């Protein structure tokens, strides 16, 4: 008799639902935010700051410094001849951007890292690359730019500020929307 009195019908308490919502809603928000991000658009402490100065020994002879490119939008690409397929995929893209935009104030610069000179030169000939490219045999430029691996690409605006970093093979569709507003502000 007493037992039957103590049994009370249990309904889900409102605070259970509130608790579940408090856990699930933030989780969904985090997932929604995370899934919309491009994992290859690497956060770099350099983005938004002045790009480190460099002097690059070019394959074609001579030396190119970042200071000489002030006033132009620089597409700084780190690559290696052994980096397949990412570097082989993006080499024609970089050449196309160079050909299309060089008269509009864009300079593509290739920095060959963790590589040897002979295969690097073969790579350049194979893809008919005409933009300035050189070797960074000691990795000084790569480390100065916080490079993890190849390929990685920086965009440096006309004032010498690093504005964008991308890890992986770039495409025209990827770079054009980033470059367009920077070219309009000239």
């Amino acid at each position: 008799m007493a037992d039957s009195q103590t049994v009370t019908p249990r309904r889900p308490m409102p605070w259970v639902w509130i608790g579940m919502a408090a856990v699930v809603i933030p989780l969904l928000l985090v997932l929604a935010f995370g899934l919309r991000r491009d994992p290859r658009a690497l956060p770099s402490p350099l983005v938004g700051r002045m790009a480190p100065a460099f002097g690059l020994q070019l394959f074609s002879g001579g030396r190119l410094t970042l200071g000489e490119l002030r006033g132009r939008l620089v597409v700084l690409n780190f690559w290696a001849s052994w980096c397949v397929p990412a570097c082989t995929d993006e080499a024609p893209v970089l050449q196309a951007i160079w050909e299309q935009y060089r008269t509009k104030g864009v300079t593509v610069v290739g920095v060959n890292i963790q590589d040897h000179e002979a295969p690097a030169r073969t790579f350049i000939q194979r893809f008919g690359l005409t933009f300035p490219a050189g070797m960074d045999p000691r990795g000084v430029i790569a480390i100065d730019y916080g490079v993890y691996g190849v390929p990685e690409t920086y965009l440096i605006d006309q004032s010498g500020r690093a504005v964008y970093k991308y890890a992986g093979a770039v495409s025209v569709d990827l770079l054009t929307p980033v470059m367009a507003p920077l070219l309009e502000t000239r």
Partner: protein
Amino acid sequence: MIRQHLLVAAWVLAVTLTTSAQEVDLGVRVIASKLRCPVCQNESVADSQSELSAQMRTLIRDKLAAGETEDQIVRYFVSRYGEWILLTPSPRSAVVRVAGAGRRPSRWCRTRNRLPAALYSAAPPFDPLAGHQEQRRVRLRRPSSALLNQSFDQLIHGVWGKQTIGVLPICRGCCRIATAFKLGLPLLHIAKFSRQGAR
């Protein structure tokens, strides 16, 4: 005689250079062991065999030879790769700040947990033989679950030990949520009871 002097001078020079090189090697090792290899998994620049790590060690050696201090060199790598490059985050890093910020809710939690306990202390003992409505009244003054009846913070301390909670901000977050529920629970009961009373 001159030959002997030259030999001694050469020996002193060789010993000095060797000692200096060993000091630089030790310095490189110390700094490289603090840095994460960017292309490895959970390996320091000192231990990694990757080409990038070798280049980083060479750069550290060059910077040491140029007279830069350990702190300056570490800050250089952080400025290029971010705090991620450090195997042990610095005290200024965001992670450590967040963990430190967890202390405040924990203290708040412990303080606030005492308030419901004071409210419930005057409640009469639970009587299983009492009628249905009487039990509802009793439950109004008592927490409905043993988990929430106990201080959540004390529970965590009991399970994981006092020192563990210092590094578990998530537990503190749980504690805060539980406290919010615990404070809100009597209000919900009051609302429910008054609704049923109105019928």
